[in-house]
């Protein structure tokens, strides 16, 4: 093997990790030189918002890093709820302008719906 053909593989490890993270589409990764400390289980202080409007969740699919806190805000004139279909989280009923927050500590896909108007569905992807 010559250095020429394996140039990519011979890059230093931190640079490789940074490149992987860059291409993974993760939005809230902080630029950090100490990449050898950054692992998937490291909590993030990221936060994200979902608006409940016109009987729908926006964005309907939200992707966040592990440790992120998602806040739902009801902008409708009608109360709604935010209920995980797998029993992971369940809000109290939220009237207009009321909020519900949940911090996702584990990676995974979390489908949810409004238990009052079950046609309203959404998904949080945690990675």
């Amino acid at each position: 093997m010559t250095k020429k053909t394996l140039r990519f593989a011979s890059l230093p490890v931190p640079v490789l990790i940074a490149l992987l993270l860059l291409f993974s589409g993760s939005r809230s990764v902080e630029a950090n030189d100490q990449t050898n400390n950054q692992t998937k289980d490291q909590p993030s202080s990221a936060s994200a918002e979902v608006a409940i409007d016109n009987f729908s969740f926006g964005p309907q699919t939200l992707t966040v890093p592990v440790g992120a806190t998602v806040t739902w805000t009801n902008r409708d004139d009608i109360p709604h709820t935010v209920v995980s279909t797998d029993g992971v989280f369940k809000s109290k009923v939220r009237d207009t302008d009321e909020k519900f927050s949940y911090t996702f500590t584990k990676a995974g896909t979390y489908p949810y719906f409004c238990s009052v108007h079950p046609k309203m569905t959404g998904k949080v992807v945690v990675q």
Partner: protein
Amino acid sequence: MTNKKQDLIDQDLQDLNNDGVDRRGFLKCMAWAGTGLVWTMSGGIPASRAFGKIYGKDKDSGKSGDFTFVQISDSHIGFNKPANPDVTATLQTAIHKIDAMPQKPDFIIHTGDLSQLSKPSEFDTLDQALKGAAAKQIYFVPGEHDMLSDNGAEYLQRFGKGTQGSGWYSFDHKGVHFVGLVNVANLKAGGMGSLGHEQLEWLEKDVKGRSASTPIVLFAHIPLWTIYPDWGWGTDDSEQALSYVKRFGSVTVLNGHIHQIMQKVEGKVSFHTAMSTAFPQPAPGTAPSAGPMKVPADQLQRVLGITDVNYLVSARSLAVVDSPLADSTP
């Protein structure tokens, strides 16, 4: 009138009830939510009379088994947004309208969404308002807004006496069998209304063995037929429920939830949804979503209303008449 002539007239009535065509036309007239005209079958011929005259001195009217009841729906006590800042006042207007009816209803049926947020104070306010109704017997089924605290525990505690499961029950009144169904409990993600296995099994047993000539009235919050799936306006397992009552000669289904009048006749089953006493909602697909629809203040009382249901023994069918809280003609 000779006996033969009377026999022919009676036969006419029965024929008209069985083939569905004239009944459909009859019910089409019912869909006119105007100033409360009532169409009846008298001697086999549809005739319209103003509200006050139907139970007058006509020789065909006023039979002892005849009665009337009123359906109200979606009072949403606790709602206070622009579409109607005072839903208690419009409910009271509805109650006054019922009390002013020339033929007093035997009882009132409320097809759900009594409250906006299932709060005790909201149920209290509703109770207070209904105390003003002359009709003392009121039957309820919950809407999804009444299930918001502990899966409807507050609702059941107040209105669930004698009911089973999430609040279903049945009763008989002057030969008509009434069934209150709950299709707003344990709703599944992506679905519409749902009755569930336990309730369906109960319903099958409840109507079994009854004579097919018993008029049946089913009432539930969410429509028991599919009106608009995108907005959840339907019940996923209603087909099974309707199969249990298919053999009956007269089935009337009364629902709420959509805050507007919709009707459908399918064979011997007539479906009807009532207006709300709180606020209107848009017609299917005419807005980004369902929900409270604001109308000019002077129009509000024309899009809210009550439903009067008349049972006439001679016709063995129920006549459903909607009337808005305010008439559109002076």
